[in-house]
């Protein structure tokens, strides 16, 4: 098998099967043993003929980023595809419709805008689609057939994959897709002279890999469901809506409750109500919705009620850029709300990590009776990766109520001061366990008190939980050179993939570099960072925000100057940008 690393973009209008073609390709490649990462883009506006781009990187080994530039552009719509040419690599390949129903006006054909050095392969997509299926809707499948013929993909395997995907759909739908694929495949083999060097070897493997092809929102939802989520309350907001839609479908099947609320305040209120009532509950939102929810962050921490909020960040502030990527909610996730309010913030770095992060979030929230914020972002929510079917969570993560002993009950102290900060907890229905929960400062029984001593002791108790959580946190991921290095990249959230990739490239170029990335932001792996910092001549902190929210945060753990790379492009962090910075400062 070759060391293939190919970025493919399929570009068309909404309704042309652009995204589904990307999905079919990703699924097939994953089945054949390749790793994939996709990051599609949809029209920002509501409907119509907006531009869609299915962007997929196919490679061997772990694919960490979707790649900034593409090797292949499949144009289902010329005008839209012209806009994707700037990200086509110097020797990129264009597959386009050379037989559209009518002539393009001058300069409205994508091939006309190719830079010299790029290779166009004209395929009569429309004509072949009509021939194979009777209409032009299957141009996407014709294009995939052409792609497969050009890149040496085993057609039988591909067709099997398409059939598996369509499963129980009507036979005529499957036929029209398969026939169109074959039409494109055969025509291309007969008529196109391949002059590029790309070729997939080893497709057609006898044993197909059965993997999930999912995005971060889906992985998060799956993790939460596996962790026994009972209630999800949500309000539609890009880019978190998908989680809500999954919950709406899946929770009732498990006897759980899904509620679409009137606003985000109501969402978090329902989560806290359910948490108080003893059920695992979660909500999902983005920055603007999190602003409303921050009304409740303090109550969850003060009344010690489990709650999980997923914040999938987008461009901000305010309504900002709903369909663009940014990592700029870190400050509000860490600090949103009044008072000293220790909460847990987990920011997974890859799609597959979202699953375990969701399990952990619900576990920690319940066991430590506190608020956990799962910080995703537009890129993580929408990027698609292949991953193994996850095994069910370890039972230790599932039932973690810290119940009172019988001895506790006669004089039940719900907010008993303990060494680890965790107090025994009853839930409604438990005889003799009744207590009063409040957002007011309170004594061990929950009674409101405002005295100096109680507030001090209770504040300390609430903060003490973090030591226990820190002991259970996922260790930071450290890659690159061992020992002393010139550049240490410290990264978080979805930028970590690009950081790891950049460090790998830098190392290959002879720069001594290493990468530290952490999913846990609060509590934070302080000692691990200090140890890492000691072996780095320079520290670079790349992140997708302007003010360096993460760099500012970690500054308190390492008193040293840091190089920063702050970008607000609205796009995922690219390894190319980090590598450039590494080379600048190395």
């Amino acid at each position, binding site marked *: 098998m070759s060391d293939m690393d190919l970025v493919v973009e399929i570009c068309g209008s909404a309704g042309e099967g652009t995204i589904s073609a990307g999905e079919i390709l990703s699924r097939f490649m994953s089945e054949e043993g390749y790793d994939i990462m996709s990051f599609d883009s949809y029209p920002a506006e509501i409907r119509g003929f907006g531009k869609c781009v299915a962007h997929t990187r196919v490679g061997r080994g772990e694919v960490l980023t979707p790649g900034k530039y593409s090797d292949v552009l499949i144009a289902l719509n010329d005008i839209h595809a012209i806009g994707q040419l700037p990200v086509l690599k110097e020797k990129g390949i264009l597959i*386009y419709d*050379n*037989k*559209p129903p*009518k*002539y*393009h*006006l*001058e*300069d*409205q*054909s994508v*091939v*006309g805008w*190719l*830079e*010299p*050095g*790029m*290779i*166009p392969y*004209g395929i009569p997509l429309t004509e072949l689609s009509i021939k194979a299926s009777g209409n032009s809707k299957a141009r996407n499948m014709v294009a995939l057939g052409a792609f497969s013929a050009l890149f040496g993909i085993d057609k039988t395997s591909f067709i099997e994959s398409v059939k598996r995907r369509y499963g129980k759909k009507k036979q005529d739908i499957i036929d029209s897709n398969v026939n169109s694929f074959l039409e494109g495949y055969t025509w291309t083999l007969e008529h196109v*002279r*391949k*002059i*590029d060097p790309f070729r997939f070897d080893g497709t057609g493997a006898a044993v197909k890999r059965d993997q999930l092809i999912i995005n971060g929102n889906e992985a998060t939802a799956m993790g939460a469901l596996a962790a026994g989520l009972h209630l999800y309350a949500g309000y539609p907001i890009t880019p978190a809506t998908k989680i809500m839609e999954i919950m709406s479908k899946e929770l009732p099947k498990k006897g759980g409750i899904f509620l679409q609320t009137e606003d985000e305040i109501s969402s978090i209120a329902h989560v806290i109500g359910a948490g108080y009532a003893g059920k695992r509950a979660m909500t999902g939102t983005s920055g603007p919705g999190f602003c409303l929810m921050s009304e409740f962050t303090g109550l969850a921490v003060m009344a010690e009620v489990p709650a999980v909020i997923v914040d999938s960040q987008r461009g901000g502030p305010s309504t900002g850029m709903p369909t663009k990527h940014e990592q700029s909610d870190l400050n509000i996730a860490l600090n949103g709300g009044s008072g000293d309010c220790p909460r847990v913030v987990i920011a997974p770095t890859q799609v597959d990590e979202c699953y375990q992060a969701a399990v952990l979030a619900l576990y920690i929230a319940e066991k430590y009776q506190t608020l956990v914020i799962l910080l995703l972002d537009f890129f993580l929510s929408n990027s698609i990766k292949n991953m193994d079917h996850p095994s069910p969570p370890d039972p230790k993560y599932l039932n973690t109520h810290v119940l009172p002993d019988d001895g506790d009950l006669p004089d039940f102290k719900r907010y008993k001061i303990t060494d680890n900060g965790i107090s025994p907890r009853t839930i409604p229905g438990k005889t003799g366990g009744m207590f009063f929960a409040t957002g007011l400062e309170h004594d061990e029984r929950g009674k409101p008190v405002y005295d100096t001593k109680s507030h001090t002791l209770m504040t300390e108790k609430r903060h003490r939980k973090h030591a226990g959580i820190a002991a259970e946190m996922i260790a930071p991921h450290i890659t690159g050179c061992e020992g002393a290095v010139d550049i240490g990249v410290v990264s978080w959230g979805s930028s970590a993939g690009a950081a790891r990739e950049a460090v790998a490239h830098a190392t290959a170029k002879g720069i001594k570099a290493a990468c530290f990335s952490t999913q846990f932001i609060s509590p934070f792996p302080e000692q691990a960072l200090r140890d890492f910092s000691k072996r780095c001549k320079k520290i670079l902190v790349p992140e997708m925000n302007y003010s360096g929210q993460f760099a500012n945060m970690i500054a308190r753990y390492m008193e040293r100057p840091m190089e920063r790379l702050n970008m607000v492009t609205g796009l995922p962090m690219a390894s190319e940008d980090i590598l450039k910075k590494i080379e600048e400062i190395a």
Partner: protein
Amino acid sequence: MPSNDHYVIIGNGPAGNHAADTLRENDGEARITILSQESVLYYYKHKLTEYIKGKTGEKELTVRPSHVYKDKRIRLRLGQEVERIDPLENRLYLKHMEIMSYTKLIIASGASPRILPSVSNFGKYLALLSSYTDVLNQLPEIRKNKRFLVLGGDLISFKFIRMLKDMGKDVDCLLYADAFWPFNLTTEMADAASESLRKSGVRVLSEDGLKAVKQTDQGFDVMTEKGHGAIYDSIYAFLGMVPNISFVLGSGIDTDRGILVDDHLKTNFDNVYAAGDCAQIYNPDIKSYWLSVGWKNASVQGEVAAMNFLGAGHVINPSPKKILNVEGFTVDTSWWEAFE
């Protein structure tokens, strides 16, 4: 004042590029577009054999990098074929279904491999190799295959055979002496060429022809008129070149074997010129048209066409006579030179 002129050149070889450069040097304003059927940059044809052998890299093969066109504000549209010309409306219909307008047009579309009627029945078994695109497409096969049959009907075939021998291949050559291109070989020439090829280990089949070709699992099963039978991995045909003018036919632009132009390289349309291998040029001395071949001719013609296009009134001169040595025989010619 910005010019509204759009000069379009069909062809990205020496004629087309020299024409484009000349136009830009003399007109800083007009839009200039080069259209090329091939999707590769302007390259040295004569280096292709060295490229196949792996002795020359892509960079050396390429005449100039793409930024040169950006610098000169020449738009290079590669991999785009003209389907037909409408000289009355000044429009080009491109094969990928785009309509393009021009104010002035230079056709420098070169020539493409010729298939002799005697072998046309076997067309689908024959590999042709005349461009960088052909090379890129066939390189893996050429490198992999061992047994070659070359239909030697032109000068390039000799070069190709040399290359194959250098690569350690087994080569048989069917020599088409009486249909040779660009001139028929005399008996002496044919003998000299055969001798030279034999010396380098090539089996030369003279005064013979293809009788039957069958595709089998082992390769192409070939039988000649004279009863020579063998199995080959590839059959390469080098049977000369013909002007590449199919897209001009029926447009109203006069053609014969090539595009007919006067000694100013102008066609029967005032704003359409032709240069290089595709042009058939009027020679007032012999009162007839001639076809020219070769890099240098094409370059000169490109420049002349461009100058005339801008109103200079230059006349194309037949090239001076040159002596050329090929495979042991000498050719004395004025109509072509430096063939590759």
